[in-house]
């Protein structure tokens, strides 16, 4: 009988580089190169059909001093983010806490609540929203049927922004699901111990629940803020940036400047302002959370 000798495979770690090769190429070509290019473009007068020519900080100067549209868009974008991110997360947390009791049919409920999130960024739903909030639309009909006055949702600058925010907040389901899962991981023993010490529901919520799920809250705030600052589709489809540029978020300004007027250099500068905002918010959040976010394994990878 001959024993076939099985040779053990010696794993070579550098093989890892082979496996990550696609990503490496993708990163260099489609992420790093565009990232650096757009920084470069932002300092040039690049109008797509000519070659970029260096003009220093002129684009930024224009954005911050002589372009009234910019401050408007900046304001609109920030207001939008301030409404939607807390709005979404508070709703998500509130409902998640409610659902975290042993309720019946929780599967069905979770499904129903998650449904709107399926349509994140969907044009079909944006069109639906536009239709619902038109002057003679259903929302106004509902208001008048309970003797409340009609609102010109899409025709007034302030309410148009609210309409768009509502669309986003309506889609809180995905965050809610995340919070639910996180809530389930909080050890019941903590709550029991607190009860023994005489803590009420509110105290338990703020001193146990929130800290325990703080990583998830934190993660959500960051990811949602990044998305919110880049909003485009809902403004574009529901209100077209109007009325009177009242929903003209920076994402739309970027699109118009780059793809209607071909001002690629200028639009790149706008994109870097957006990036700057994201960076600042992320850093601030990390700073703010360093004392407050509780990682069970100490936080290293």
């Amino acid at each position: 009988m001959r024993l076939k000798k099985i040779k053990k495979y010696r794993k070579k770690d550098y093989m890892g580089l082979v496996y990550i090769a696609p990503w490496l190429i993708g990163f260099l070509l489609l992420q790093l190169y565009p990232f650096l290019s757009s920084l470069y473009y932002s300092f040039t007068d690049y109008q797509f059909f000519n070659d970029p020519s260096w003009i220093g900080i002129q684009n930024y100067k224009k954005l911050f001093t002589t372009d009234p549209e910019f401050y408007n868009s900046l304001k609109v974008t920030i207001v939008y983010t301030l409404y939607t991110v807390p709005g979404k997360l508070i709703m998500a947390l509130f409902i998640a806490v409610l659902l975290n009791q042993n309720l019946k049919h929780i599967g069905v409920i979770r499904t129903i609540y998650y449904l709107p999130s399926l349509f994140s960024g969907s044009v079909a739903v944006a069109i639906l929203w536009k239709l619902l909030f038109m002057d003679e639309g259903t929302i106004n009909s509902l208001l008048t049927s309970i003797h409340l006055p009609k609102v010109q949702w899409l025709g007034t600058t302030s309410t148009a922004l609210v309409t768009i925010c509502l669309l986003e907040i309506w889609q809180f389901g995905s965050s809610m699901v995340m919070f639910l899962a996180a809530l389930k991981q909080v050890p019941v023993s903590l709550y029991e111990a607190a009860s023994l010490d005489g803590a009420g529901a509110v105290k338990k919520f703020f001193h146990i629940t929130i800290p325990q799920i703080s990583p998830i809250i934190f993660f959500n705030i960051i990811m949602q803020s990044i998305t919110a600052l880049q909003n485009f589709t809902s403004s574009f489809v529901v209100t077209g940036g109007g009325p009177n540029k009242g929903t003209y978020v920076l994402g739309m300004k970027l699109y118009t400047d780059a793809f209607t007027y071909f001002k690629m250099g200028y639009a790149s500068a706008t994109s870097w302002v957006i990036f700057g905002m994201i960076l600042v918010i992320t850093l601030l959040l990390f700073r703010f959370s360093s004392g407050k976010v509780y990682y069970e394994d100490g936080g290293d990878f």
Partner: protein
Amino acid sequence: MRKIKKNKVLIYLIIALVGVLMIYPILWMFLAAFKTNSEIFGSVKLLPGSWSFDAFVNGWKGTGRYSFGKFFLNTFAIVVPTTLLTVVSCMIVAYGFARFNFPGKKLLFGILIATLMLPNTVIIIPRYTLFNKFGWLNTYLPFYIPALLACYPFFIFMLMQFMRGIPRELDESAYMDGCGTLRTFISILLPLLKPALFSAGLFQFLWTYNDFFNSLIYINSVEKYPISLALRSAIDAEANVQWGQIMAMAFISVLPLMILFFVAQKYFVEGVATSGLKG
């Protein structure tokens, strides 16, 4: 006891109310497809006066030469390859990061995490000019190639996290049997990764299906329009817009997503839940 019961009733009430708010728009969209323009505006009635499928039939015809069938095909032509390519490339890259300790790993991993927060807006313009140089505009390549090259750090990360939960001993025993790294991956890890792969695929399907901005700038001829662009053109007609038809098509366009969701709920929910948590 009474108090707890009252609380529970209150909770159920709130949940039911908010639940109605969640569903109402979608339900309305479906029913609007059966309504006439005058029923859509100025009426609180949810149900249509008559149940005719005209809006579906007429809306499907589309405008010009193309029916919504064509637009659906286009959407799937974009979404399916992109999803498949994404899952395959991301899982391979995740394997590389999760199981190998190559030189420079810490740095490259750090870069991966950093790109998680790279906003699309800051790279979109140079990507556009790059794709223009390659002659890829008005094709679906701007969707396929990033998928092929695993430009989705979110999925890489998600799959990595999942893989960390699979004991390395399994790998080791495969090596003992003489399997190379690829064999090990395919025969040992892949089967165990299935739920995560499925979740990743679902999410990429969802996100690509709903994409608008990229379609808007990369696709120019109506022949290649996905549903998102087709719907949007439908609402800027110069004459009387037939909203019933548009709602019919809008509903049909979200139907695949809803079906997919109901069938694969578990994966959606688990995917969302685990993406934010560690392992």
